[in-house]
């Protein structure tokens, strides 16, 4: 028989305004085994916690129920308070009467009734709680960063500088990511490559960093501190140790048709290629889908011209397995597809382009060598119209409901750069709102308007119409003037919404990290734990968590690194004792539990069982407590009821249900 204390929190008015806390205390006092019940405005405060300690001491309590907020918020707080008062922390139960009750109800009578029921369920459970002891597990002092853009690079450098080993896995042939495709950066207009390349070199030459480009994460198992990861190193068909990066192979390659992904498909590349001149590593890959030799067996020109014999058509994909203590996701973004936005004629006209395409056109290494020209006829555009929020802040299912955050600033940047370099070109921007919060951001936008004469029109564009003479007619509305506008343009640039890299779903599934409805990775707490995933040991860096510009990305990358360093600095981690346990007397070794276990924590052993004096050898399930994450899948699968979850046993859960239905 437990001696239970019930502590009801007001949470200021968060709970007390909707739930009659005095009534809950009164009802708690009537419950069997409750020796103490009280309420307090802030139970989580120092004073609240000492009231719990005092009651434990005075009444000799063995179990505690705290009626308060979600256990995600303060379970750890109250467990520590109990431990300090001399009770096993797992003898504490939280009845969530805030998120599950006061916040979602309006009527005080009903809410109070529900709070009492939740309290009763928790009391019933504590009666069956048993002290549990946390185990320990070792920490592998090596981190994995998935994605080699500016987010991944910065996280890796920061972790490596602290003295820990880091591996970067990058899907494309080079690190650098989206930032390497940008021409200039706002609000300073410095050259993107000039500030990125030193970072890339630093990462590549760092003694603690290993970079796997042209590689993808294939499989992840294990848990915080002890992840095992399979990495697929895709066949490069070029020996990385031999290649000197001279580039002759790329000059000679006769397969010149594949679209150049780095230039957003605006021009073509060869089948053997490095995506851009500053690529790291400066070793090309062969695109097997367009290589004549790999497709037909004939050609082999690159092999003939390679002076160091680095070409190797026999290479195969290779899977390497590595151990990590922490994993950082830095998978970045792409722009959305515009198929559902037929009104902008993106597919019909070569002169309707996305902002990222314009970025490549403005770049000296881009398809037009940095000359601003129409892709249809190579002429210099004299009238350019920018359309903002294409697919962002969208209320139907064609686009995204969120603000992509970076578009207002890069559009102002493009407009200003064009007006500066081509003063006889007119620039018009259609916008819904101009959003420029950020250091020196609004000043930047105002410079575009005031100093560079960029014509901003508040209103959206309904249709872009390619004309017979090759120009574009833009039909829009000026909301401030309340007028329809028909504007002739030579080029239209769409500020296309950004979305998380499509691969993130696959990666999130492997990591059991959660994603939101827009495929952004969910943070453990939107305000207080913004760089951690709810899955222990998985951290978030950059746009995979939400739209961000470069400074924000770098800041978050550093924050993620600090969290990783904090984890890797520990030699051992306390493990969760709420793991599954098999009753050997009931287990018949059917293997169903092992089949459903997502963590591979269940194995089978032949064991000598003493069944009430009868000795027999039996095949029974054994749970590895270090691997078990306490998900409970095995307990509901077990046909003989042998498997139980410690801290959440079948009896405890049924006792809660009984109490609710009483």
């Amino acid at each position: 028989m437990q001696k239970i204390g019930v502590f009801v929190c007001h949470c200021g008015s968060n709970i007390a305004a909707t739930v009659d806390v005095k009534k809950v205390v009164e009802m708690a006092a009537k419950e069997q085994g409750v020796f103490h019940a009280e309420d307090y405005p802030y139970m989580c405060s120092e004073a609240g916690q000492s009231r719990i300690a005092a009651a434990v001491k005075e009444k000799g309590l063995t179990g505690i129920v705290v009626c308060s907020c979600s256990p995600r918020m303060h379970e750890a707080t109250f467990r520590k308070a109990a431990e300090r008062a001399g009770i096993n922390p797992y003898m504490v139960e939280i009845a969530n009467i805030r998120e599950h009750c006061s916040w979602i109800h309006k009527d005080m009578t009903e809410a109070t009734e529900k709070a009492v029921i939740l309290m009763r369920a928790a009391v019933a459970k504590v009666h069956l709680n048993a002290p549990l002891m946390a185990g320990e597990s070792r920490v592998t002092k090596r981190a994995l960063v998935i994605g080699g853009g500016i987010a991944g690079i910065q996280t890796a450098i920061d972790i490596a500088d602290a003295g820990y080993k880091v591996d970067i896995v990058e899907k494309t042939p080079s690190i650098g990511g989206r930032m390497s495709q940008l021409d200039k950066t706002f609000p300073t207009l410095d050259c993107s490559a000039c500030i990125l390349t030193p970072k890339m070199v630093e990462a590549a030459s760092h003694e603690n960093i290993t970079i796997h480009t042209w590689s993808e994460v294939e499989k992840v198992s294990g848990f915080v501190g002890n992840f095992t990861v399979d990495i697929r190193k895709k066949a490069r068909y070029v020996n990385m140790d031999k290649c000197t990066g001279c580039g002759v192979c790329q000059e000679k390659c006769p397969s010149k048709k594949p679209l150049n992904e780095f230039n957003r498909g605006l021009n073509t590349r060869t089948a053997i290629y490095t995506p851009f001149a500053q690529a790291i590593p400066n070793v090309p890959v062969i695109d097997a889908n367009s290589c004549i030799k790999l497709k037909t067996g004939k050609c082999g020109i690159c092999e003939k011209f390679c002076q160091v014999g680095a070409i190797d058509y026999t290479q195969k994909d290779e899977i390497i397995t590595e151990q990590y203590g922490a994993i950082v996701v830095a998978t970045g973004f792409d722009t959305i597809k515009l198929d559902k936005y037929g009104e902008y004629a993106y597919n019909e006209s070569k002169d309707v382009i996305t902002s990222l395409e314009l970025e490549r056109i403005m770049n000296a290494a881009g398809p037009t060598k940095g000359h601003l020209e129409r892709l249809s006829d190579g002429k210099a555009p004299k009238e350019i119209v920018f359309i903002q929020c294409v697919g962002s802040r969208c209320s139907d299912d064609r686009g995204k409901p969120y603000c992509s955050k970076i578009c207002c600033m890069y559009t102002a940047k493009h407009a200003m750069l064009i007006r500066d370099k081509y003063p006889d070109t007119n620039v018009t921007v259609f916008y819904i709102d101009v959003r420029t919060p950020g250091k020196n951001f609004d000043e930047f936008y105002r410079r575009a308007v005031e100093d560079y004469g960029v014509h901003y029109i508040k209103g959206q564009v309904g249709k872009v119409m390619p004309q017979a003479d090759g120009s574009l007619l833009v039909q829009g509305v000026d909301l401030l003037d309340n007028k329809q506008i028909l504007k002739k343009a030579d080029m239209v640039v769409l500020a296309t919404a950004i979305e998380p890299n499509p691969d993130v779903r696959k990666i999130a599934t492997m990591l059991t990290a959660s994603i939101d409805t827009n495929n952004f990775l969910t943070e453990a707490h939107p305000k207080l734990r913004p760089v951690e995933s709810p899955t222990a040991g998985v951290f978030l860096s950059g746009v995979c968590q939400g739209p961000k510009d470069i400074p924000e990305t770098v800041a978050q990358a550093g924050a993620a690194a600090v969290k990783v360093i904090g984890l890797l600095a520990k030699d051992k981690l306390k493990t969760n004792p709420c793991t599954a346990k098999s009753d050997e007397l009931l287990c018949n070794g059917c293997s169903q539990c092992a089949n459903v276990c997502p963590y591979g924590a269940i194995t089978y052993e032949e064991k000598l069982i003493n069944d009430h004096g009868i000795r027999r050898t039996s095949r029974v399930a054994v749970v590895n407590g270090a691997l078990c994450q306490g998900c409970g899948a095995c307990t509901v699968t077990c046909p003989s009821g042998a498997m139980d979850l410690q801290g959440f046993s079948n009896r405890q859960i049924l006792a809660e249900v009984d109490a609710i239905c009483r």
Partner: protein
Amino acid sequence: MKYSYYPGCTLRNKAKDLDLYARKCAVALGFELEELTDWQCCGGVYPLGSDEIASKLPSVRALNDAKQKGQDLVAVCSACYHVLKRVNDDMANVADIQTRANNYMALEEPYKGETAVLHFLEVLRDRVGFEELKKKVVNPLTGRKIGAYYGCLLLRPSDVMAFDDPENPTILEDFIRALGATPVVYPYRNECCGGYISLKEPNLAASMCDKITSSAAGFEADCLVTACPLCKYNLNKSGKLPIVYFTELLAEALGVKEGDK
């Protein structure tokens, strides 16, 4: 294959060609259009009011007749097709309209939007198939450059009409291609001709139609093809390009245009 056929009033006078060639082509393509015995005017724009019941009833009657026969209901006129499909959607999804219309109709079994409404073009695309149509063409319209004019009624509201992509439709272009001609894509092909505004403000309708025909002419179309009598009426006034019904082109290509007209 037998379909219930709803011609509509305009097809009995101003737009006789649209109707005649549709029937001839159906025969040539091997499906049957069985005209509903007592159809009435679809009501034009009036049934589209959400507080209108009486003007929706002719559509409900036609839809229910097709249901009784177990046939899909085919229309050729864009406006009739639009009204039938919108009313059918209301009957399936708007409880208030469904109840009130059925109260008026007093049918043995209430009508709840069971009938599938098809435009003749949809029959060509989804039932006959443009590949199959291509095989039956005897006079390919080779060398002719034809602009498709969709107007609004076939395409919008796109969630109800579900006819084609409202911004970049392709069904008429595919149709033109199947007949051996070259489709001319011009940006005004899904812009409004002005509709009934031509009665009240003829100048406004004229300027709207002028944009459409000028744009198509600019892209070197020889003629425009439409499925809507009102669009044809309005566009004809601009006089820049010949406007033809799609069924007329189809009849020409299938070799059934001349004869017992």
